[in-house]
């Protein structure tokens, strides 16, 4: 350990070795898999909504990866079947998430298919769940004296309604809801080997 170059070369080799296992081999396995047959690509509006979901940082409280019944009661909570890599073929950036300060959202479109519900919830979550700690997003909405004919008016209880005014959704809010409603992976799972089956008794199909 008295020379710089061998030390740095060995350090680089070790990182390269790790990269083969954590990056290159999984990439070879995942990237060669087609999208799940039931999965639709996102529409333009959904992609705009997804970009809003990304830049507002929704991922820091909401995961998008239901766990297997052997591990956790995610299926019983209505969050959907355990997801596999094939469910995310159109997802860039990925939004798997690491926190459940809020519930998992991979199937929120199937669980809560009402646009009106989502608009109310995004404007003021406590109008629906009084104990919710999710922030409201009032900047995705406009308040007006009177709604124009093609405006989408947000339904609000008395408490949260601005006096003498109506709350209408901006195009950004409508796109975001479009994206949330598109989150529906209730079709049958494809490539069940492309997930962590480490909790199942038989260790899944990937022996």
């Amino acid at each position, binding site marked *: *350990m*008295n020379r710089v170059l061998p*030390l*740095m070369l060995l350090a*680089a080799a*070790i*990182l390269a*070795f*790790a990269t083969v*296992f*954590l*990056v290159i*081999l*999984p*990439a070879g*396995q*995942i990237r060669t898999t087609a999208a799940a047959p039931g999965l639709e690509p996102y529409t333009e509006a959904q992609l705009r909504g997804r970009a809003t979901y*990304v*830049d*507002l*940082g*929704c*991922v*820091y409280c909401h*995961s998008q990866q239901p766990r*297997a019944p052997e*591990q*956790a009661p995610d299926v*019983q909570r209505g969050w959907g079947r355990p*997801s*596999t*890599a094939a*469910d*995310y073929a*159109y*997802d*860039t*950036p*990925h*939004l*798997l998430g*690491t926190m*459940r*300060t809020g519930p998992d959202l991979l199937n929120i479109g199937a669980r809560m298919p009402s646009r009106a519900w989502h608009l109310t919830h995004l404007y003021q979550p*406590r109008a629906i*769940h009084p*104990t919710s*700690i999710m*922030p*409201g997003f*009032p*900047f995705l909405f406009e308040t007006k004296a009177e709604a124009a004919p093609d405006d989408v008016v947000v339904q609000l209880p008395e408490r949260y309604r601005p006096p003498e005014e109506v709350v209408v959704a901006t195009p950004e809010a409508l796109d975001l809801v479009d994206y949330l409603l598109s989150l529906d992976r209730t079709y049958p799972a494809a490539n069940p080997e*492309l*997930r*962590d089956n*480490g*909790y199942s008794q038989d*260790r899944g199909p*990937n*022996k």
Partner: protein
Amino acid sequence: MEFTIGTLVLVSFAVSLVALVVLIWTISRSEMRFTQADAHTIFEAEARGEGLDDPGTRPEQTGSPQGRDGDSLVPESSRRIILFVFATATLWLLLGSSFGLIASLKLHLPDWLNSVAPLTFGRMRTMHLNLVIYGWLSLGLMGLALWLIPTIFATRLRLPSVAMAGAVLMNLSVGAGVWAIGAGWTDGLEWLEIPWQIDIFIAISVFLFVVPLLVTARHRNVRHIYVTGWYYLGAMVWFPVLFIVANIPGLHSGVQQATVNWWFAHNVLGLWLTPLGVGAAYYLLPRIIGKPIYSYSLSLVGFWALALFYSQVGMHHLIGGPVPTWVVTLSVVQSIMMFVPVIAVAVNQHPLWLGNLGAFRASIPLRFVSIGALMYTAASMQGSIEALRSVSSVTHFTHYTVGHAHLGAYAFVTFVLFGALYYVIPRLVGRVWPFPSFIVAHWWLVVVGFAIYFASLTFGGWLQGKAMLDPTRDWMESMELTVPYLTGRSVGGSLMVLGHFAFAFNLIAILVGRGAERKAGAGLAEARAVAAPQSEGGN
């Protein structure tokens, strides 16, 4: 391609294990050619007596380092760069920890500061993370490297103007990156949010730091590379590779991007912040106490085992997720193997300060570094346990992991950096800290604050995880029960932020010329007065 859990995990595990055995064998055969005597390298590189060394409160010890032949190791040109880096890093710390506090408060005051998008939780939290990781820790530790590398290699910093350019560019890039996140321009991956267009400049600025440090290493005047040097040289290889590969636009997608995401995010801790923090502790503990580390050859195992095992632990962030079982299992196995380097470092570092508790009591810089080193042991062991599938089922997706992340990034790396700044800055300016009571206040505020912070999130997060796993309880309960603990976290966080302001106050005071000066010899002020840095007197 046909993959099986068994073969792949086994191959990787076997290679790592064989490498470790080879390493132990080479040590026993003395192939690596160093002995316990080499642990004294740091004392020989610098003409400075052994014995308790605390320039923070003793004016006579604030001399700039000098080699045995009387050359200044950190001449005025270097001192200015290092002070600039430390001052700006502290600015990012104040901003970053304030943003963290705001984000923390928002989790129990959800209607507070909601009128515009940059103030929403998702952006505040992200600006906090990027400010403290890139602005405070990365920049601050690179500033420390500009001090440590010349000092352990007994030579002055080469190409100082290149390093200065790196410092300026890094500051501009961090500022621009955080502004972008606030404005909603993000790459969207945790730890990699700064847009790749700005990441290019971060990568360039890291190179501008690395090149002068490597040139300095080539000109070293010591026979042996002290252990701190291994960690710093390793980190200087690892970080640029990680940062560039993870940020290449358009290369990664879907779940595959998630594997790259966590390969990067965990390695930025394991192969960047950890080696810089551990390396600094390996220097500062013996330096301040004035005695060499416990078992010098053991540090070799600590270093190479860290490289081998830590580099493969990232996928434990995806336990139970949509990635192949074998890669998750591989990371779980390597996470457990992390006990090897962690114990090696612990055996080396803790007996030193535990056996010199008088010094521990007398010197707050030493307290910061010692407790920081102890928290490295704690955070790593907690992380290994957390990676077990059974434990991860409870803690994954909860605030428990946030507590764990702060145990590593704050109680370990930030504490070591605080200790380093308290030790190094007086030797850069040739004056002691003007307000010792503020140092004491800083110490107790962050210690008590962090204890509250960590206890709140650990208990609250564990209960949250247990509730989430219980199908008879509504999911909402798992969120509602965390609110008192999240409030507790804000209380602890407030104390920590207050401590940072106490530190910044002292830093401003010492930079504007307050504090008792050294009577003989040279700090920055004297050097300027005689306009000849080379003429600095003895110590």
